[in-house]
């Protein structure tokens, strides 16, 4: 019995430039923000202390640390493309913090698809543009990720 048959995986051949990723929604609560910050050993006031986040940093509440935000972005793509998708490169820019209480909305689009041999072997790559919006519909996180996908037919 093949375990591979048990998980969903897109191949490079199945993906086209312009493809939209299915949208996703995630509600952030206080526990979630604290749990993600502490799981990365990021014991900074902005992520765990609402008084500090509000009075010293002018946020509405505690906000997510960078590592966990990257985790949300990666989760969004691999949930669509499957676990055999290897993250080759990811650039991320923060426009607004993701605060406790926010409902996050994820969107993504395939912007490029190509074969690359810069590392001395052929890689089947795709580039996806990613956005996380908050309640106020503001784009908070803007990212571009490059993934290597398996090449299989069907």
């Amino acid at each position, binding site marked *: 019995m093949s*375990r*591979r048959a*048990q*998980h969903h995986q897109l191949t490079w051949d199945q993906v086209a430039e312009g493809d939209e990723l299915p949208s996703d929604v*995630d509600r952030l609560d206080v526990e*979630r923000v604290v*749990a*993600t910050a*502490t*799981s*990365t*050993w*990021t*014991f*900074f*006031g*902005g992520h765990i202390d609402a008084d*500090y986040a509000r009075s*010293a*940093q*002018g946020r509405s509440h505690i906000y997510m640390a*960078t*590592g*966990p935000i*990257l*985790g*949300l*972005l*990666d*989760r969004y793509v*691999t*949930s669509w493309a499957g*676990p*055999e998708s*290897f*993250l*080759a*490169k*990811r*650039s*991320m*820019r*923060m426009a607004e913090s993701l605060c406790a209480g926010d409902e996050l909305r994820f969107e993504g689009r395939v912007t490029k698809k190509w074969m690359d041999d810069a*590392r001395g072997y052929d890689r089947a790559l795709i580039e996806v543009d990613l956005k996380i919006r908050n309640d106020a519909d503001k784009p908070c996180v803007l990212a571009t990720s490059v993934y290597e996908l398996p090449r299989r037919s069907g």
Partner: protein
Amino acid sequence: MSDRESAGAYGLCVGTYEEGLTHIGRPSEVRFADLPVNEAMVRQFVSAVHDPNPLYWDEDLASQVCGSGVAPPAMLTTWVTPQNWRPDYLPEPVTALLVAVPLPGDSMINISSEIEFFDHLRIGDRLNVVEEVESISEEKQTRVGTGHYLTVVGRFRRQSGELVAIQRNVILRFWARGAQ
């Protein structure tokens, strides 16, 4: 550095812009991970992030797909993040470069981050990182306060010396409690 002022929750080294500039291109000391990449911390992270990727929940599948258990790429910097307390902590522990660069400002936020991966982070890897400040901007007025943008490059290797990832971070150092 013991006579220097430090500020804010991160214990940032405070200095002038000119002092900061002298740190450009100086490689940091090698910072070693306290712990190897391990399943317990991976599980805590993916559980908090709500990441259902079976690579982090199914060891057999990870071995089949990746050749070993693996950690989420988003945990890269976690492995070299120092613990807040330990019994043998030195009075002046080796700190992240971006904390040690003298600059005006008692706070910092991450503006952008670019990471290139050459391999998976594998269970059992003992990572180390060498950082270097690539550039520091002139003083800028920003939404959160007045400060400087720093670009820091980090090269992450496993114990064999193999390069696993290169990170390029842009960080804003600024006065959160009002300029001095």
